[in-house]
């Protein structure tokens, strides 16, 4: 289990990026973290990954505090960040170089097959499209078999079609080994497609504004009324989190809540 205990982050220049964020994530759960820019989503993810250390509070994985990058925690960044001097296969195997060669080759082959890029194994990263490169990055993060996989807006730089494709892809990969996913995004649809629970954050300082459980069966139909309803709830929570006049009519949401009994 991944636990955040009152995690706060103040940068040396005095900016308070995060304040007292507490969160418990069950093994195998998919949590989406959503919020406007500057609400500390990425800071939160970096604190969990151990790339940055929180200034207050702590991150605990299976009872042990995380203070530096952890072998059970993988991370996927907004950009693929493939190493240009390694072939696609060597990039995928980057995190398991200490394993015997036989096992390495096998696991790399399996991972590439799983992301549908077997025929690109010997190619340089520069020859991949943006979506392919991000798939390789996903394979690279999954090959060491992390218990927790952190995703920092991984699909935000991709076009809409590729994004939808990769969301489905990610879910299929998740279903293989059911790691815990913490997925930072600013795309409401993406949060609902993926997550069991959506954490809405508010800015200055970044903290949790609301949590919305998305209890829809998978695969989720992006066109369904239930999907739409979840989207309204999240949009309303986002509006509240920014202390804006509620642009998504909450009465309508409440009415929808009444109608929502059928799902």
């Amino acid at each position, binding site marked *: 289990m991944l636990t955040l205990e009152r995690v706060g982050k103040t940068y040396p220049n005095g900016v308070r990026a995060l304040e007292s964020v507490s969160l418990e994530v069950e093994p195998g759960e998919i949590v989406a973290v959503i919020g406007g820019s500057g609400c500390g989503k990425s800071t939160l993810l970096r604190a969990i990954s151990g790339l940055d250390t929180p200034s207050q509070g702590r991150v605990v994985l299976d009872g042990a505090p995380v203070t530096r*990058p952890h072998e059970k925690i993988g991370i996927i960044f907004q950009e693929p960040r493939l190493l240009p001097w390694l072939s696609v296969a060597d990039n995928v195997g980057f995190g398991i170089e200490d394993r015997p060669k036989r096992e390495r080759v096998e696991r790399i082959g399996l991972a590439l097959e799983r992301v549908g890029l077997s025929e690109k194994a010997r190619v340089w990263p520069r020859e991949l499209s943006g979506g392919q490169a991000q798939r390789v990055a996903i394979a690279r993060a999954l090959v060491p078999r992390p218990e927790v996989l952190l995703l920092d807006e991984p699909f935000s730089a991709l076009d809409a079609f590729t994004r939808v494709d990769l969301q489905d892809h990610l879910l299929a990969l998740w279903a293989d080994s059911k790691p815990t996913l913490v997925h930072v995004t600013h795309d409401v649809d993406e949060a609902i497609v993926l997550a069991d629970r959506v954490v809405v954050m508010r800015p200055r300082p970044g903290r949790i504004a609301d949590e919305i459980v998305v209890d829809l069966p998978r695969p989720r139909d992006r066109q369904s009324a239930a999907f739409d309803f979840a989207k309204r709830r999240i949009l309303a929570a986002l509006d509240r989190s920014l202390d804006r006049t509620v642009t998504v009519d909450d009465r309508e949401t409440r009415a929808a809540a009444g109608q929502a009994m059928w799902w």
Partner: protein
Amino acid sequence: MTIAAAEATPQQRKAGFDRLGRYGKPLLGLVLPVVAAALWELAVRAGLASGRLVPPPSVIFATFWELAQAGELQRHASATCSRVAAGFCIGVVAGTLAGAITGYSALLRRLLDPTLQALRAIPSIAWVPLFILWFGIFEGSKITLISVGVFFPVYLGIMGAIMSVDRKLVEVGRAFRLSDTAMVRRILLPAVLPAYILALRSGLGLGWMFVVAAELLGASEGLGFLLIDGQQLGKPAQIVAAIVAFAVIGKTTDWIVASAAAPFLRWEDAFVRR
């Protein structure tokens, strides 16, 4: 019709260029010097120019052949080459070490870089009298001068390359919990390599420049000695022959460095790759 014709022409020209293939394209570079040499030869033969101060290719070739026959060319060339080789090795080792530590550690950069930059501002030839006092008039002072010439481009190249390694790729290394040595081996070295090869090549170029300076200032053998000797005895053909030897050997050594590095740089997303 006219539009179609206009569009077809560049394509056909491109097809013609492509048809030259792997060995044909490098030969294109020879067209200009060969044509110029042939024209000059014809001009001298036709009596349009005397060719006394600018000897025609046939005379240069004859001089070249004469020097080679007598074993003089080989003796001078190998003296020069071994000076450049020694100076290059020393300069590269020193430049790489200094550049690596100043690139890697901000403290050492603060400590060393200002001094090295100040030294770099001194025209290297200005060191010659001092080097001669310190290391004598023979090989020591010459090799030191060449090393100094090679040192700075290598130093600057590797320090800049290390400092500009993509922070995002370093973070990938951190996320995979690489140790310091693994970080250097698996992220920093490969990331720095293209800039390093470039630095080696400019260092080598400066090495050839400085060997001439060193040999002009006093040597009893070496291609630079052939230059001075040709000037003092009024043999322009010998000077040009030595210059040609410099060009050929310099280009060859650069080609050796570039092609030795090429297999390690195939991943580069370069502008043109042919």
